């Protein structure tokens, strides 16, 4: 457990440093995500066993199981911006609903079209 916690924290730290060093506009933890993914894929490609794989998978699962809990503290910060939200509530809800439904429809449509072509070719 402790080893996998160390690995996850280490990759986040590298990600944050990477972001600061190169002045990237991608969040540090996301860079950490990519680096961890690349490491795992590289180890797999060389057909070696990923060390502490089970341990890492378990820790990740625990963290991701409670993911919703983790954004409550920042979410509560909405109390500081209630007036901004209130003044634009109808517009924000409109953007969210129309934006979400149109993206859903478009993405689903494109993917189904490509998958159907693929089954025809196969």
């Amino acid at each position: 457990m402790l080893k996998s916690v160390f690995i996850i924290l280490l990759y986040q730290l590298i990600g944050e440093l990477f972001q600061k060093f190169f002045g990237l506009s991608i969040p540090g933890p996301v860079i950490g995500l990519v680096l961890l993914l690349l490491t795992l894929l590289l180890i797999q490609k060389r057909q070696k066993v990923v060390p502490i794989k089970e341990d890492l998978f378990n820790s990740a699962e625990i963290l991701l199981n409670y993911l919703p809990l983790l954004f409550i503290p920042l979410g509560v910060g909405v109390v500081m911006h209630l007036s901004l939200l209130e003044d634009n509530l109808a517009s924000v809800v409109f953007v969210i609903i129309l934006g979400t439904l149109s993206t859903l429809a478009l993405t689903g449509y494109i993917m189904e079209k490509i998958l159907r072509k693929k089954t025809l070719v196969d």
Partner: protein
Amino acid sequence: MIDQDKLYSIWVYLQAEPLFWLTLTIGSYLIADMAYKKSNLFPLLNPVAMSVLIVSLILILFNIKYERYFDGAKFIHFLLGPATVALAIPIYKNWNLIISNSKAILISLILGSTFAILITYTLSLYLELPKELIMSLLPRNVTAPIAMGISEIIGGIPSLTAIITILTGVVGASLGVFVFDVMKLKNMDARGFSLGLTSHGIGTARAMSRNKNAGVYAAVGMGLSGLLTSILVPLFLKII
């Protein structure tokens, strides 16, 4: 008789301690999560939205500054970064599936994610929303930890992004099925992927509860769109 002064001094002690705010945050989440599961995962009873509501009401009711609350709750907040890194694991686990269907996944991913940003920006501009609100809206279709990170970088308000992201998830998870039915879209892989890309974790949970294949594709859509969007949004803002 209850000693009023004593009660007051206990309250003063409690609200200054992280312990109280940590307990409150986890307690609200447990209650909200229980209600959500009792309701058979009814999207409008989203546990995060409900917990935020409970905690916010308590802060407003007792006139407590957000900074004081956050000072305690930051210990939970800290785990957000590590959890983001941990998102590498589900992508890694599904890597073979991604490779075996790379063309369909890649094209849908790029077009879907780009469209999500464009439609949000266009609509917000048309409705003349204030700039910080637009920036808070732009990453709304990806998982909250990544969306809040993007929001912070581009000058949005991460707290607002959290709420907006949850709302996006709830809308997609509750109305997605109707959209697909109206379109006569039957392919479960496509349905799932679209739900994950558009409504992140909430959409993925919905897809998983309905169809296993749809659930896996939703998880893939959620992970990959989180990655791509954190590159696309800053890039888009540089171009315009």
